[in-house]
């Protein structure tokens, strides 16, 4: 199994995501934002957290125009898996691989703490190792995690079972407490919480690990 992790100049969770992929059995290659091609034979592209281009203009907006973004979109169009965490989720909405937008937290402040999520669907390669409705503790760390979309989009996300995770108590003002969503083909997941920060016993909990083992099992069985 092969994963690529994109590295933008302001990415700062790229190593963390690579470690989580490796611990789940992936070979991981780091891909620089100025590259225009992804390595061949990839199963999944990870878009990591951080401040891709300093969060200037809008979080993720400049990254969505970076040289690598064409290859990312082509990978997704071919049905490839994509996983965006935090700033990665913001980038996926800016590239329109996922609908909606992430606005400033309702409380205006940056928030870093561990929160409880509910796994809303197990019908995806990312979540099939969780029990339906499971409550899991995963850290958040963001200033712009307030998920908003128009009524039609929200209705579709709900109707198509594409809300992957909800906060038990939305810390950031997200509509419908949405923490992570899937693409139409269920192969692109974007989420604000950081499962890679809760994936080893030393992290104080391992609720995030199942996401990576879900993926590796799904890919082995694919």
């Amino acid at each position, binding site marked *: 199994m092969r994963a690529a992790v994109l590295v933008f100049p302001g990415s700062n969770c790229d190593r963390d995501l690579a470690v989580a992929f490796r611990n789940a059995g992936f070979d991981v290659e780091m891909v620089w934002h100025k590259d225009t091609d992804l390595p061949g034979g990839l199963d999944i592209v990870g878009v990591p957290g951080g401040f891709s281009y300093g969060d200037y203009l809008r979080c993720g907006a400049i990254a969505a125009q970076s040289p690598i973004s064409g290859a990312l979109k082509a990978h997704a169009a071919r049905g490839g898996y994509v996983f965006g965490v935090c700033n990665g989720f913001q980038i996926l909405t800016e590239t329109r691989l996922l609908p909606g937008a992430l606005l400033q937290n309702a409380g205006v402040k940056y928030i870093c703490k561990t929160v409880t999520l509910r796994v809303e669907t197990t019908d995806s390669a990312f979540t099939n190792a969780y029990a339906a409705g499971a409550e899991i503790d995963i850290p958040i*760390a963001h200033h712009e995690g307030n998920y908003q979309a128009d009524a039609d989009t929200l209705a579709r996300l709900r109707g198509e079972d594409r809300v992957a995770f909800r906060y038990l108590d939305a810390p950031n003002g997200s509509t419908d407490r949405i923490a992570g969503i899937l693409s139409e083909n269920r192969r692109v997941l974007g989420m604000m919480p950081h499962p890679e920060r809760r994936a080893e016993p030393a992290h104080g909990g391992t609720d995030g690990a199942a996401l990576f083992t879900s993926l590796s099992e799904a890919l082995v069985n694919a």
Partner: protein
Amino acid sequence: MQEPAITPDLIAKHGLSAEEYDRILEIIGREPSFTELGIFSAMWNEHCSYKSSKKWLRTLPTEGPQVICGPGENAGVVDIGDGQAVVFKMESHNHPSYIEPYQGAATGVGGILRDVFTMGARPIAAMNALSFGSPDHPKTRQLVHGVVEGIGGYGNCFGVPTVGGEVRFHPAYNGNCLVNAFAAGLADADKIFYSAASGVGMPVVYLGAKTGRDGVGGATMASAEFDDTIEQKRPTVQVGDPFTEKRLLEACLELMQTGAVISIQDMGAAGLTCSAVEMGDKGRLGIKLELDRVPVREDAMSAYEMMLSESQERMLMVLNPELEAEAKAVFEKWDLDFAVVGETIAEDRFLILHGNAVKADLPLSKLASTAPEYDRPWVETPAPSELAPVPEIDPIDGLRALIASPNYAAKQWVYEQYDSMVMADTIRNPGLGAGVVRVHGTNKALAFTSDVTPRYVKANPVEGGKQAVAEAYRNLTAVGAVPLATTDNMNFGNPEKPEIMGQFVGAIRGIGAACAALDMPIVSGNVSLYNETDGQGILPTPTIGAVGLLTSADDLIDGLPRDGHLALVLGETRGHLGQSALLAEVFHREEGDAPAVDLEAERRHGDFIRAHREWIDACTDLSDGGLALAAFELAEAAGVGVTLDAGDTPALFGEDQARYLISCSYDKAEALMVAAGQAGVPLATVGRFGGDRVWMGGSEAPLADLSALYRGAFAEVFA
């Protein structure tokens, strides 16, 4: 551009005394140019020259088998085994933060991070020790919001976890808040980079962001007292860009791998001047700079402005010329400036050329090594008067008063604005006691704490200085770490006042004694003097940042009390209430002596904790607030009630030193008792954890009520 004439007024505005100016005339044998005056002022101000403090700093213990590099470089370097080293330092950004809180605090974080990665270390942890004025002072709220957001805004984007710190409030900081930023990084012990230039004719290279007019004269500003003209000083505060700093970090670490770096120095206070002089002075070389080659972001900057600009995210290095192409490619990859701006020269000269003119031509070594040094007059701090009787108080009322105060309430409003988990190696989060970060890819871990109790230092500088180190030692011990080394950030008032200088001298004595006795040498530090506004000095605040090592993360003590656990106190309780939190918060009295520190007992008790860690489920040090506050904090974190047998005020709220609160099962407690008896250390059962109420003596309250008060009090005042 016509440069201003050198007048007594201009000299005074540069913070130079008449005697210092005479010394300049003596050194160069002529009147200095405007640029030269600026350079002398930058090098000789208190902030850069340590002219009032050097004599005393030399007395601190700085050596030990674990020390790879002590004070004098950008940061201290300490061996952590397996060929690895931790590189750390703490530095103040007090004056800028008071003038412009967001940028002042942000660039304080940026500066300390650069100090760490300029030595070749990747930053892995940050802390911040903050002191603000009274919570109800009209300026405090804005400062708290700005400083906390600035720290978060910079550190979060850069990508370093903020794992600890302190926040305190006292009216003595009304006109002068303190922002002390700590950073630690990880490096291979044989790949540390130093600042001493070597080789003649080697290119001097400018790296990073472009130079603007921001921060011109910042270091001189930071070396003066404040008055009501403070608003006019806003342009002397630098503006930070953490995105550039992140790229500078990655580019520097990549560059260091190429072998192109002979020496490197970050541009901090007094920017290009200070960094170039440091590199030349340490390498006993001269430096020639051609300012027309300096990347600038503003038009028509003068030599004076370029030499004194404190624009952020810049580095200066001496390059191995054979590897110039490789080095340049790294900086182009990260879209950062890379410009050869000068060279090392054999003569002892600091030669500044700009627009085909010589703007400065000074003997370089005279700018650094022979900077003025003062033996300022000082007086011993008078012994504090006897403590008048303290009335008994209902213990729950006393506890409520403490946890309702922003000083002792939970600080999650602050630390949840900092990313404490980026890098995914944080194994003990902020909240209570030391933060702990795993050494990436190993099973080792490092613990970090910052401590000082300024009330103690004011009452008794020597014991207060000792206490700050002892508390740091205990906080590291309480998570199972072996204390390794210390960085000190000495924040004091005007050193020209003998009583302030006396506080400084006393605190240094206490810190030195404690660091020696507890084997925690000082490896780096910073002195911030003139923390006064309109003649009112701050509380003397020597912040101690300390680092401990866990050779195995399995030794981490990170448990919480459980229903049925016993509560034990290691160490002797005498009930010292002088300068206590209870006295200050409840009775509004700051009286009596600081608690005495028995360094041998500290050592014995710390060693006992580490030797018997397998019987200790949860542990915390007892510091201000005493047993009552510590027991409540542990119980609250665990969500379980606690019953303390004692009900009297001195036993519950006394602040005797060398004490820990331990929670463990009955069986483990028995084993600990036996071991304590054999080791001759005092260990006593003081109560038990369980239920959903907090009992102290005959007084009680539901844990949930106290918890709501504790968790809500800070936001109540500041949100």
